[in-house]
């Protein structure tokens, strides 16, 4: 059938540009030497993986990665959905478009810029937040150096930056819900809230599931760039994640093999989670990615 033909361009691109270079994965199992190239370098088996897993702080680092990632998923996954739902309730089109554009702005600011900003706002002495707290008679909080507060800062700042942009996909999904369904619900006596619950949410449920399952794939990437900029030695115990740890341990060395091994480790875990997530959603909701 010509259906298969439609797959041909995509398959060609896939095979040439994703599968042909895939032999590079074996770098992780070798001691890479520039001159010998990937194929000529010495085979070392699981050495690089063991190097990661058996290293002194791996336990702490792995735990932190999981905790921070799960915090981010549990807290930050629903918010863009809620934002999209609220946006949908706004009927003044011009205002809605304006607001929608504005809330995506933080996405365009790099972490380098945002760190400068947050460090100032959250500063222990003279920072905006603490000044407000002091006004209400509360003690200043050292957000960035106190292990108890640090993870919260990570989640909050990450959310603030990405929520607006992440909401776009849900706004688009909502736009795809057949308007007639709202009509029908209204006739059945459903108010706006009930309509949100019984029309909108179910209408975008497959999008939500797809995004949630895929999000699980990135669980071992807890925000390396953000954390590298915001953390400092006193919060390593709670904020040091795989990405930041590997960065520090690899300073001064050019370690393609090691970096690739870490990447594969992260990918394998992520991939397994996605498979599980997909199976689970198939069982629970009947919908899945494949």
């Amino acid at each position, binding site marked *: 059938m010509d259906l298969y033909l439609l797959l041909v361009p995509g398959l060609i691109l896939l095979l040439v540009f994703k599968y042909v270079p895939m032999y590079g994965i074996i770098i992780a199992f070798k001691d890479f030497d*520039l*001159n010998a190239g990937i194929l000529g370098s010495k085979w070392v088996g699981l050495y690089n993986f063991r190097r990661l897993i058996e290293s002194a702080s791996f336990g702490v680092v792995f735990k932190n990665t999981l905790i921070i990632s799960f915090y981010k998923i549990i807290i930050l996954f629903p918010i863009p959905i809620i934002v999209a739902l609220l946006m949908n309730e706004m009927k003044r089109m011009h205002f809605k478009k304006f607001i929608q554009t504005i809330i995506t702005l933080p996405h365009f600011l790099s972490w380098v810029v945002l760190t*400068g900003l947050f*460090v100032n706002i959250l500063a222990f002495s*003279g920072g905006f937040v603490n000044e407000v707290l002091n006004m209400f008679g509360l003690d200043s909080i050292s957000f960035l*150096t106190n292990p108890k507060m640090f993870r919260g800062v990570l989640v909050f700042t990450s959310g603030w930056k990405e929520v607006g942009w992440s909401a776009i996909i849900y706004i688009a999904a909502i736009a795809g819900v057949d308007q007639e369904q709202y009509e029908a619900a209204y006739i059945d006596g459903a108010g706006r809230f009930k309509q949100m619950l019984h029309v909108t949410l179910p209408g975008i449920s497959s999008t939500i599931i797809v995004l949630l399952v895929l999000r699980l794939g990135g669980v071992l990437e807890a925000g390396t760039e953000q954390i590298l900029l*915001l953390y400092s030695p006193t919060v390593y115990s709670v904020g040091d994640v795989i990405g930041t740890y590997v960065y520090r341990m690899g300073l001064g060395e*050019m370690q393609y093999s090691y970096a690739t091994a870490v990447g594969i480790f992260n990918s394998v875990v992520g991939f397994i989670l996605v498979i599980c997530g997909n199976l689970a959603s198939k069982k629970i909701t009947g919908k899945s990615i494949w």
Partner: protein
Amino acid sequence: MLKLSKRIATIMLCCAVSVSMFSGCQKKAVETSSKAAETTKTKPVLKELLLYNKIDYNTMQLAKDLEAKSGYTVKYDMLPATGAVDKLNLLMSSGADYDIINLNSPGDIDRYIKSGLLTDLTPLIEQYGPNIKESMTQRTLDRTTVDSKKYVVSSMGVYYNWDGPAFRTDLVEKMKTKIPTTTEEFKTFLQLVKDTDPAGVGKDKNLVWTIKGPKNYVVMGAFGLAQQYVAENGKVVDKYAGQEMKDYLAYMADLYKNGLIDKEFAVSGGSSFMEKFTQGRSVVATLEWGESGYKTALETIKKTSLNVKIDYMTSLKGKDGKQGITWDEGVPEGTVFIPKTSKNAVEAIKYINWTLEKSNNLYLNLGTEGVDYKTVATGGYEPIQPAYEEDRAVSILFNLGGREQDVKKEIFNARLGRKPMQKEAYLKINTIPENLKVMPILFNKAIDAKTKNAAKLDKMISDEMTKVIMGGATVASWDDFYKTVLSQGGDDILKEMNVEFPKIKK
């Protein structure tokens, strides 16, 4: 409907064609011009790879001057600013045919040498590079020779400290005191700043002393820590492992606890560091002598406090009279090498050799006498502005090694004079009496274990120092911590150093 897909297909086709034409055009242009160059010159075109610069090196006046004077045409390429190491590695491993690669710091040279990616320069220098040989002191030659083979042309620059503890002298005078000279005085001074708030910023905004990191070489010098590796009783020891470090950490932790150091110094955000100092929230800060440090701070503060003055504390005496400023014999400058895949290694060496001949070297660095620079009667040179800026400001990027035996120092001093405020700050920081300069142990060759582990271990040590100063770890726990440093490479370094130490010619 098929029309629609046909339309899209045609657009795609057009795009693809135009893209390939576009890129094809570029290729053709480059090819024709280089072919033309090759046929009209007897000397081959040399391809040189350098670090990133905003302006294309090929368009710079200096490139043209050098070509005119030497007869060699050099085509310059740049590495990107971000990811330069990755790009260089890829270029090296895929056999890019540059003739000269000119980097600032040694970087991953050892790796390239071990992998056999560089041309052995020894015979070439013997035959075609007398100036090259002459320009490097024995020490530089030793340090760049691996297995009796030379792979790198490099030179030692003048050593200097890049920054130091800077004081708002105007506020110091306001408090009717002076820049402290002992650790005791320093503590009293800082306490005075805290209590009197001379800049009037308010109790909670007063940070007193803003530091950039846990290591402060002037203060560390007062605890005998000016150098990490020191020879004692014929053996090399690691001072960071001992009591002196614990004393230093205790001192700093005490200051921190009493609110005399910026509580959030460890959080990165260099801009807020400058903000704090220029707003008067600290009276002591670590400022570099470069334009972005001293000069910028002065100009910024002048906008709010007209009579601002900044001076540096250049030494501090500790409890037992210990004092010292970290120093070194020089700073390795320029790493020039030739990849094995170069097609013109001989000509490249000849060219490098040409640049290291005395008058050529002066021409490269200083320009034309009377136009760009003049000779000072008492010795040395002085740039003539603005001509020097226009013609030769970029000369440090074009240097292929340097003449350590004579003009390198003078060129450095002359260039300092380009920017008077920079020179002022430089002199304030680096005018140190000879007896206070503490040199490291001068080994005959680079210590491999150090090259391999230094960056990682330094970070570990800095991080732990920060923790102790901030009270997140106790001074007593330092010994336990240092055991990990030793096991992760510190021991290897000491071992190797002790093997090399007896070999040093006395």
